[in-house]
């Protein structure tokens, strides 16, 4: 990585949800601020800014990461995925998103993006998850509304659906 000057802005280029993006960033700019305010990808939320709550979780080269503990310049050249990149089309929901809606697995929806991102990454590695495993994964996130059980139910159902056959995408608008 090149040496960066603390006082200068640097061009950072990476792939966001499959599209090339770039912005000017001071070295201290957080990835959350770069995504949200620099690029307008406000689906990633900031809940604690110290890495505990998990609301800001994004995928960097496929691996889940806390965007609040990541600097924007660390995204240089990476493949970044956020909640905006999870659904198959603008008016569709992914299998997991549809399961969340069916099971009332969200209320205020502030923490949801991070949970979806973590589950997406986990199910790629472990397509046959047990409930305990899913509780561990979701255990890396704080949700203050749902009491978690509906999230686990949704995740179990979506995992089963994804195994069977990718079902028809559902319309986002009821």
């Amino acid at each position, binding site marked *: 990585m090149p040496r960066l000057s603390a006082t200068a802005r640097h061009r950072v280029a990476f792939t966001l949800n499959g599209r090339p993006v770039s912005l000017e960033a*001071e070295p*201290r*700019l957080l990835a959350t601020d770069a995504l*949200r305010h620099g690029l307008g*990808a*406000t*689906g*990633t*939320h*900031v*809940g*604690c*800014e*110290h890495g*505990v*709550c998990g*609301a800001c979780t994004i995928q960097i080269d496929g691996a889940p990461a806390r965007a609040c503990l990541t600097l924007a310049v660390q995204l240089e050249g990476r493949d970044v995925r*956020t*909640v*905006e990149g*999870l*659904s198959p089309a603008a008016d569709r*929901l992914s299998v997991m*998103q549809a399961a*969340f*809606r*069916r099971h*009332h697995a*969200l*209320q*205020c*929806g*502030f*923490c*949801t*993006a991070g949970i*979806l991102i973590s589950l997406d990454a986990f199910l790629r590695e472990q397509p046959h998850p047990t409930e305990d495993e*899913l*509780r*561990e994964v*979701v*255990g*890396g*996130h*704080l*949700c*203050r*509304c*749902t*009491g*978690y*059980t*509906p*999230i*686990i139910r949704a995740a179990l159902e979506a995992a089963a659906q994804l195994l069977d056959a990718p079902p028809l995408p559902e319309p*986002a*608008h*009821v």
Partner: protein
Amino acid sequence: MRPETISWTGQSVERVEDAALLTGRGRFIDDLGVRPGTLHAAILRSPHAHADILSIDSTAAAAMPGVAAIVTGRDLARLTTPMVAGLKVAVENWPMAVERVRYVGEPVAIVVAQDRYLAEDALDAIEIEYAPRPCVVDPLASLGADAPVLHDKAGANLVSDRCFRYGEPEAAFAQAAHRLEVSIAYPRNTGAPMETFGVVADYDPHEDAYEILANFQGPFSIHAVMARCLKVPGNRLRLRMPPDSGGSFGVKQGVAPYAVLIGVAARLARAPVKWIEDRLEHLSAAVAATNRVTTLKAAVTSEGRITALDWDQVEDCGAYPRAPEPATLYRMHGNMTGAYDIANLAIRNRVVLTNKAPTGLVRGFGGPQVYYALERLMQRIAVTLGLDPLAVIRANLIQRGQFPYRTASGALYDSGDYAKAIDLAVADGRLAELERRRNEARAAGRRYGIGFAAAVEPSVSNMGYITSVLTAAERQKAGPKNGAQATATVSLDPVGSVSVHVASVPQGQGHRTVLAQVVADVFGLSREAISVVVDLDTGKDAWSIASGNYSSRFAAAVAGTAHLAATRLRDKLAAIAASQLDVAPAQIGFAGGAVFATGDATKTLPFGRVAALSHWSPALLPDGVDQAIRETAFWTPPELAAPTEDDQVNSSLCHGFIFDMAGVEVDVDTGKVRIDRYVTMHDCGRVLHPGMVEGQIRGGFAQALGATFYEELAYAYDGAFLTGTFADYLLPTATETPDIAILHIETPSPFTPLGAKGVGEGNCMSTPVCLANAVADAIGVAELDLPLTPARIAALVAAAEPARPASDGGRAAELGAARPGDRTLRGEGQAKVAATPEAIWAMLLDAEQLASIIPGCHGVRKLSETHFKADVTLGVGPVKGRYKAEIRLSDLDGPKAATLTGSVSGALGTGGGSGRVILSAGEDGLTVISYSYEAAVGGKVAAIGGRLLDGAAKAIIAQFFAALARKAAPAGARTGFFARLLGRRG
């Protein structure tokens, strides 16, 4: 009339809110764009629990890049007046410290800059000189005559003391077979929504008008408080709310003081200003539920029947009794007898201030504090009298035939069948299963317990209940307060589509979905055809003081009012259609998107055509119909009357019922409690959306689980705030939150339009005490305070620790015995220095010498022979910061002994301590320096780095003496063996 083909209300349909939230298209406050030129605020906060602000020097900060304005308490005092509270007391409720700080985390200055990064940079450059005062954090200590007084004009920290008496409590106690009591110290906790506060404010100097966007939740009685504080009429404070809000649980009522602060910042910066709170700010200073000390006594018959209750509640509202406080203490006033038929009641309510963050709305709002005492008492009655706990609950229940039931203190319970609810909860072997599991566990030597709790869940608050804190005479003078105005607007556009708007400000509850269901049913339309808007703008939407989203009022009040508005509009449409179809209005039906004459299939009109008629053809409106375009309904229940002369108050409109039952097992080695089974039975009247009701119950249960086992906003005895991160303030995660069994019984409320009652808060009231009762049953203890951390449980069940060795105890006493919540760092040590005591003595009194000894020192100024000031850079773990240090020498006994008292303060926190240094001549010309110290650290450093402090203090002190030894030793002696001369312990 043709039967309506679909009834949406009561179905668990998918939420209209979800698609946007699931795909990252939510519109939370920080997701919305701002006007070009909008500046960003960062807030500097007090590191002291109690101190005078001697000076604020913002010269350097103001000169930093991008800084537009710096706002201090002085500016605030010039442009605003203190916020009014519910109490008539001489306390100035400033939203930012004016001349004095009274809790750690209190705002002291605001930097407004081009971006948040630059604003935070400048915070570090503001120099504030504080003169610390003694502080008090314990509510009972704060009542003491010698307690430091927070607000001088109030004269004492006790700001309200009211006694209430209903029936003949004294006689009942005198005649009672048994008198029992419980004492509870209920801790501070909070709702901790995942989204923090946010405000974007703008000010128009020509109209003297503020426009403020905030994720405020209500109640909108606080709008009046804000406008008055900003010194503008209500119509010059336009308050808007974003479409989405990331949870609140009551807490976002606390945005109000920040709406004022950022409004003032925008005025001074002459530009729009945005502020998003961070998590440390939120935990330390947003809103806490009150901590409360309660003594509850009962007069009881031999059969376990309660004939009287006597409550003594000491409510801790923190440093300022901020509106709507002391509402937490009075919200439950009508239902202080819970689910029980108890005619005699005495209550003493005291409100006390302490050096902690102000309190406010938190889910449950007064219920957790009350039911923890009441239901612990029920269990204690059973244990003490040798009765079955469930039998004691049953013996005291209000019976079905008694509804509507007037409680001793004036609540009118609308409906219920408590005995049946309990019967259903324990039926189907649910209780038998718990008992079987308990028997098996105990037979195997394990600690298993069963707990119960019954609670009446109030909802739809009477805006007048808070005035119970005033005497009848004071109330008379102020004018009666009562009611709970709800409002909803239903409108039809020129193509006949239906829109709904309510003043309810949801934070994730799914109001748009439920309102669409309710209104669709009224018009016989599909729910998808109804558009619902819930973001609120006080400048143009209908609202009133009770607007907002709190006291579980949505289903009972707001959805019902939407139904009312829709029904009015439908009746007008029926009149229009009747005129068009030439039939009687009573014949008109609405279903399947059509308006038709019942019994005549030829007479049918599309809904849209009838609905649009008022726009296109007002000449066709029949007599008596002005328009059918827009109906705004206001609804306030007549049952919510003002408090009576004798202090009876119907504090809430609806009273749901909860009965919980739990089986837990306690691990005696670790103190960990495992929830084996949890059953919760609810009566929330008519259920409008079962899925959302289940969501409310599960979410409330999870928060209650946190309150029971993990969560406490903890303070050290010196007022330092200790739980500023989610690594310190622990919320339950998916791995700690068990699945629960949820049961329902429906007794519709006769007082609400749809028969619904609130449901969102119940488990926050019932679950902590149900689990505590189960733990008490498992380990056989009488006194049990929350949170039930493993350490606390282990201490209760473990065998006594062996006594400390005598020598050790003596040393502890010498250094000051540890107090509860004590975060004091203590230590002692010895250093040997190759210099005479006189030489060392001279160094301690020499500013320049001190400068070279004090770790990280950038220069010492000598203010007097014994008083020095210095700038130092200190690091605690990863947190390194610049501090102002002050050192005083006292009790001088030269060249033998001196006391050094020092303090440091900086943006990251404060520290203070004192140490006694004794110099004695040793062998070989060495001087032995013995020292002992006590130190405490506060501010940000204490809130986020508490675990690191001990080691850091020892390292810094060691550095000091190492430097002293190095410096004092004559040049020849300062060789490699110096390190060996420095002995240190402690």
